[in-house]
């Protein structure tokens, strides 16, 4: 029940924020309608910029474990963290210190946005805080224009992915990849349920979850 209300709250907040941004963007700025040079039939050589959304705690740990195995052709890397999350920043810096030893180049930046939903936050205030986070998220995504958005929840990633969706609508070649936590065996998380309809690829780590959500992708355990 709580989670359903949460879904509704987040959706309302995002839609409320989307409408004005959508209309302003559509009337003022059409520069995003760039052509799409990366047709998948030819092998890509140019690096891909990636936005990595670090959720906090276990979410951060899982996503950084995925990022650590990615090659240097995923660069630059734009990390987004919630403004209340000090631990994630330290972990990102530690990971990038390892990557720099291999590539000899500093290829990342860290960006902070307000948290959209704290644990056990009520659905009414979730509408407000998600709206607030959304106002921060859109300019960030529009400015950085990543080619991949990589996330695994919780709520902070929703407004960023919605902004990514808007970029896609305007013709940007962008892949939104959501990797559900290994903790989710039976049900998708709140973020997973929303992004099931938005992400290009929603990876789950258990076959049972894939059976329940056939639109998801199961390639095995990721972490």
């Amino acid at each position, binding site marked *: 029940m709580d989670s359903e209300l949460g879904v509704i709250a987040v959706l309302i907040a995002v839609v409320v924020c989307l409408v004005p941004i959508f209309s302003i963007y559509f009337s003022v700025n059409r520069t995003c309608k760039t052509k799409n040079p990366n047709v*998948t039939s030819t092998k*890509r050589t140019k690096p891909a910029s990636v936005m990595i959304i670090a959720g906090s705690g276990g979410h951060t740990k899982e996503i950084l474990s995925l990022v650590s195995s990615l090659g240097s052709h995923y660069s630059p890397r734009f990390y987004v963290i919630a403004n209340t999350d000090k631990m994630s920043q330290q972990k990102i810096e530690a990971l990038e210190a390892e990557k720099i030893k291999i590539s000899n180049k500093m290829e990342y930046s860290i960006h902070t946005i307000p948290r959209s939903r704290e644990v056990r936050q009520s659905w009414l205030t979730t509408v407000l805080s998600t709206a607030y986070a959304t106002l921060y998220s859109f300019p960030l995504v529009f400015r950085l224009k990543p080619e991949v958005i990589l996330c695994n929840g919780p709520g902070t990633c929703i407004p960023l992915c919605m902004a990514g969706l808007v970029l896609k609508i305007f013709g940007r070649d962008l892949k939104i990849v959501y990797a559900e936590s290994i903790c989710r065996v039976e049900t998708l998380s709140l973020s997973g349920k929303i992004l099931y309809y938005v992400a290009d690829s929603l990876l789950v780590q258990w076959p049972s979850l894939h059976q329940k959500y056939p639109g998801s992708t199961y390639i095995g355990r*990721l972490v």
Partner: protein
Amino acid sequence: MSVFVTVGTTKFDNLINTVTKYSAIKAFQDLGYNRLVLQTGAGKIQKELDQLEELDKFTVEHYDFKPSITEDIESASLVISHAGAGSILETLGAKKPLLVVINEDLMGNHQLELAYQLYRDQHLYYCECSTFVETLKSSDFTKLKPFPDKKPKLFVDYLDNLLGFK
């Protein structure tokens, strides 16, 4: 042979109390263990542990947090953990026998899904504080199946394909 108990970043004083009771220490000794290392987390258990009576041929050590518990897992013959994914995956990754103790306060919480699934897959045993000693005594840890190593390449290949790098 030592036992390592970890509660992660949370507090779970009931677990620490359970594993330091006379009946639990006795069970550890009967199973051949002579050392107990406790990572006690954010709970308020420290003082009470200092008052534990000196035990014959059995040492108890404890601390609240460390940046990494990898070493303690590596040097343990048995790990007793809360149901947190981080501790569970690190222990199974190190191929150590694992007994997860479920915090009754979290019953119905999705965070327990992982422990239940890994029990069904025979990678660990689980119990509650109230059933800890009997579970410890009755569990045959040699019957647990080794947890397969993670394959980072799966994700890398998948993403490379999606982006057209391959």
